[in-house]
């Protein structure tokens, strides 16, 4: 299935968000996720499934002013 990860097309095999994150290599990382512009909390990743063309944002801490 092809989704959009952080603005770039990306093929993933799994559907559940937690599984997708693992597949993409984010396991254990301090990241937050949004799907199609809406925040998806860590707790509900297990109940969230991605579909074709979904926009997934995986974000992490950065420098800020």
């Amino acid at each position, binding site marked *: 299935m092809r989704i959009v990860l*952080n*603005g770039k097309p990306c093929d993933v095999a799994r559907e559940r968000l937690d599984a997708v994150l693992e597949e*993409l*290599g*984010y396991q254990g*990382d*301090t*990241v*937050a*996720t*949004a799907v199609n*512009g*809406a*925040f998806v*909390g*860590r707790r509900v990743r297990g109940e969230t499934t991605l579909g074709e063309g979904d926009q997934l*944002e*995986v*974000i*992490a*801490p*950065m*420098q*800020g*002013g």
Partner: protein
Amino acid sequence: MTAFYGVELSNRLMLGTAQYPSPAILAEAVRAAGVDVVTVSLRRESAERRDGQAFWDLIRALGVRVLPNTAGCHSVKEAVTTAEMAREVFGTPWVKLEVIGEHDSLQPDLFGLVEAAEILSAEGFQVFPYTTEDLVAAGRLLDAGCEVLMPWGAPIGSGLGLNNLYGLRSLRAHFPDVPLVIDAGVGLPSHAAAAMELGYDAVLLNTAVAKAGDPVAMAAAFSQAIAAGRAAFEADPMEPRDMAAPSTPVIGKAFLG
């Protein structure tokens, strides 16, 4: 000491973490300034590069409290979603709420700001709104649940200081009990000291430190100037007067005509 959402700080300088020559210099600057609070932000993470993880490890090692911002958000929705992600990532209800209204000045969009502040306060966030000296907006932000206000001194990164001294003085006078933080535009320690002499409770800055020739020394200088300005405010300064008054008493002066 002023409390920010119940948290008393030992240092009235809040420092941004961006634009330093290196992570090491950032860390040194934070230590040199002795700040309790640093601002941070969020960005897309690459599973390969994992820059965010490295930055986060650095910040945690500093043992400071973080104030996540919603920098670069131009809509209420963006700002709210960013705040929600920040709360999960940084594990804090604090958020420096920025709803940017205009590209050249990066000035707050007061309309979007109030709207986003209402939403986030309702969601249990402790909002530090980046606002202007506008008194009405200030009142609406307080009604929205904000317990701190962060008016700008001048546009972000400009280093111009306090552009509207009159407006900032009015804001302080109208909300004597609200913690007020000057956020953005401060370029020199004297600007920060002046803000504290006006009775402001803290100063948040980034560029003036990070872009100095020696960020570590500059961070310490700002920390010192802010403490000095606050001490002066509490020590009840003299009233300026238009004419001179001899500091050395004149009585008893020898006659040497």
